[in-house]
């Protein structure tokens, strides 16, 4: 239907109108986080695809690409895959997650503890 080739990959990347907020002091950090998060997402996609392949192989022994594309998890498999993604997110988000704990419980620097231990 289109006269010219429509580059949907480029079009999918279009920027939303409106100045993007800045979250970090260095603008390069914004770009690096966006790349990193895209990779974090794609690793999850790969893991889910692997899970599909494993489940299909368990069930059928031999599979085709069509089998992968059309795979639909049943309720139990859906829950297990959700838990798998959750576990993955908790693992890669360990740093920010620990920031919450740090906020809950302020702790003295180990250097201070070290000095204290010499005295007790």
């Amino acid at each position, binding site marked *: *239907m*289109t006269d010219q080739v*429509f580059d*949907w*990959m480029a*079009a*999918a*990347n*279009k*920027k*939303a*109108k*409106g100045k*993007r*907020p800045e*979250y*970090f002091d260095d603008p390069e950090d*914004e770009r690096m*986080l*966006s790349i990193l*998060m*895209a990779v974090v*997402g794609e690793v*999850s*996609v790969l893991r*889910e*695809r692997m899970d*599909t392949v494993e489940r299909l192989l368990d069930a059928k022994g031999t599979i085709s690409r069509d089998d*992968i*594309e059309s*795979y*639909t*998890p049943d*309720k139990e498999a*859906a*829950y297990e*895959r*959700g*838990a798998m*993604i*959750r576990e993955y*997110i*908790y693992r890669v*988000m360990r740093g*920010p*997650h620990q*920031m*919450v704990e740090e*906020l*809950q419980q*302020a702790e003295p620097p180990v250097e201070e503890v070290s000095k204290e231990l010499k005295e007790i």
Partner: protein
Amino acid sequence: MSKTVPSDQKLDVAPPYNAVARHGVSPQPSHDEIARFDFLANFNKFLSGALGPGNQLAYDKRVLPAFLKENGREPQDRFEIRHAMNDDPFHSFWSALKRNSMEMRQQNGRAMVLRQIDELNAKARQYNEGRDTLELNPEVAVPRYQSAVDIHCMPGSYHGEELSGDVSAGANYDCGIFATTAGGLGALSDGGGQALVDWIKKERPGWQPRRMLDIGTTVGHNIVPLALAFPDTEFIAIDTAAPILRYAHARAQSLGATNIKFIQSNAEDLSRWDDGTFDWVQTTMFLHETSGKALPKIIAEGYRVLADNGLMFHLEQPEYSDAMPLFEQFLRDWDAFNNNEPFWSSMHALDMKDEMVKAGFDRDELFETGVRAVVDREIFPEAPTGEDEDHGRAAFWHAYGAWKNADQMQEAAE
């Protein structure tokens, strides 16, 4: 030692994108496109549930004490809290992750939709061509409040066209609601519309409105359940954006809701309809996407075209009343400044009751109620509440409503 074994634990995980229902113009996702939304849905749960509480901690432990020390007083409003919080490393990082999640949702949704744009446009044409239930009007201008920035960081917003006459804006908006709400709106993202059906059937059993007007309908997901529940009612759904209406019409037709007429129209001027034309006039999660001047005009026009004993109903987030803590106001404001919702903050600071009285209602006609998305709990999660609430995204809304001159009608009948 806890006796709980891991297999007995029920973790809060998002449903898979496989579980969404397909309709006649649904994009067909590939395996990996499904997996992208599965990741985002669970990531959004993590951001609101596991990381979200860090914002309050950062405020209580760091930001507020520093503010008090520097200014010798408490913050006066949500804006002062925002400026102070934006300098906090935890809040900045959380915001950066959340913004990236939104941008990824747009990229992932658009990539899925634009890859198959020709097929989607062809499917939509089958439902749209030659039907008098879709009326587009190129004279309707995109209002400034829709064009100033791309709302929700959606490239092209509701009115953008990648190819002439396409439906991609609608298809992208429709599919991505799943990722943003982690499935909180159910299989067709219509849990809000289904909640309205339940609400009205309880509120006024047996009521049969003649005509209903849905303003700012987008993809019509909130109106289709009502149209199916009231098959003899004539539904008019309006929006200013043609691409989203093309998609909404095809979507509704494919779901069997043939009693909705989708019309490209701006609700600030409803002059094509006479006074008292409708028994029900509503907006759902729309008024915050208008402007300070447009909102009163829309409500006034809605009042004019509403018949006596008719219902006006606006579904929104709760307003920022004095009773709401400033910190909660600040959190609810996140989307205003980080998700391109430029009128969000001002709108929620309005007193909707005052706005409705200015439009013509008596104050004693007004009511407020809460509406929670109705979804299949077997598959889709309960709307998060309390600590885990993702302010502004949870499938729980506040409704401002009124029955026009209902007392007079009652007295006249007696």
